[in-house]
């Protein structure tokens, strides 16, 4: 079965995010005074041929831990459809 996975990778809380900091500054500059925090992440879309949803889940988790996210600084989450 074909499974579409949407994977979100972002910095762990507590790790300073240089892009997020810059965007926050720019938003404030544009008058969005309510902005308290900005975090920038990556969205990775994968189309996967897997035996089952559980199989896909296992594979995606593996991909995240091996390559897609760096556990030293990044967290990940994903949804399958």
């Amino acid at each position: 079965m074909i499974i579409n996975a949407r994977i979100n990778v972002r910095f762990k809380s507590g790790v300073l995010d240089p892009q997020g900091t810059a965007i926050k500054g720019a938003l404030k500059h544009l008058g969005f005074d309510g902005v308290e925090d900005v975090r920038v992440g990556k969205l990775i879309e994968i189309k996967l041929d897997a035996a089952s949803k559980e199989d896909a889940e296992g594979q995606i988790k593996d991909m995240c831990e091996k390559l897609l996210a760096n556990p030293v600084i990044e967290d990940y989450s994903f949804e399958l459809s």
Partner: protein
Amino acid sequence: MKCAVIMFPGSNCDVDCYHACRDVLGQPTEYVFHKEKFSSVDFDLIVLPGGFSYGDYLRAGAIARFSPAMESVIKAAEAGKLILGICNGFQILLEAKLLPGAMKRNRDLKFHCHDVFLRVENNNTPFTGLYKKGEIIKVPIAHGEGNYFADRDTMEKLKARGGVVFTYCDRDGNVTEEANPNGSVENIAGIVSEQGNVLGMMPHPERCAEDILGNTDGRRVFESILQYVEGSVAHGR
């Protein structure tokens, strides 16, 4: 001393490192293509050069670490061979977990190409034996992702074992916020592995190793390595 320079797709300081090892240092040097494997006994020094391996897509160094040549690099590291990662090479060493921590984009999100001052924090390594501890040297940087990060525990362990080799400082050797070009934790510019045989550094010693370049402060990284390797041979280690 037999040197290898690994060529990843997107490496671009490979020729500079090759030039430093072969022409400046006068040692036999070979390129190793990323699709090739090699044996730990083939080389005494393995250089992971700067550049943008795999375009630095995903994360700098993240994809390069899975190449066949890196399997051999990891084995060589385990066998105690000297591994020098410069710039992108440092990023690959972090991704490969041969060194602790991770790299983020520079604090100001800009690429920085200019000279920086470094303080030699540890000269008791195969890579820095010819420097004095606390010596201030000038070395160019050229990177967009040199913002070194490690969590508190890792930092404590790293510092406790003398793992920090170079820090960014000002002309007079003060390790200050202003002297930090990229936002690295505690101004870290270069670190060494626990066994002492793997060094990663963001600045480029190969770009300041000849008189004609107006600065030879980086040359002693290569000369220290040579002295160490020849010493090891002489002592039968």
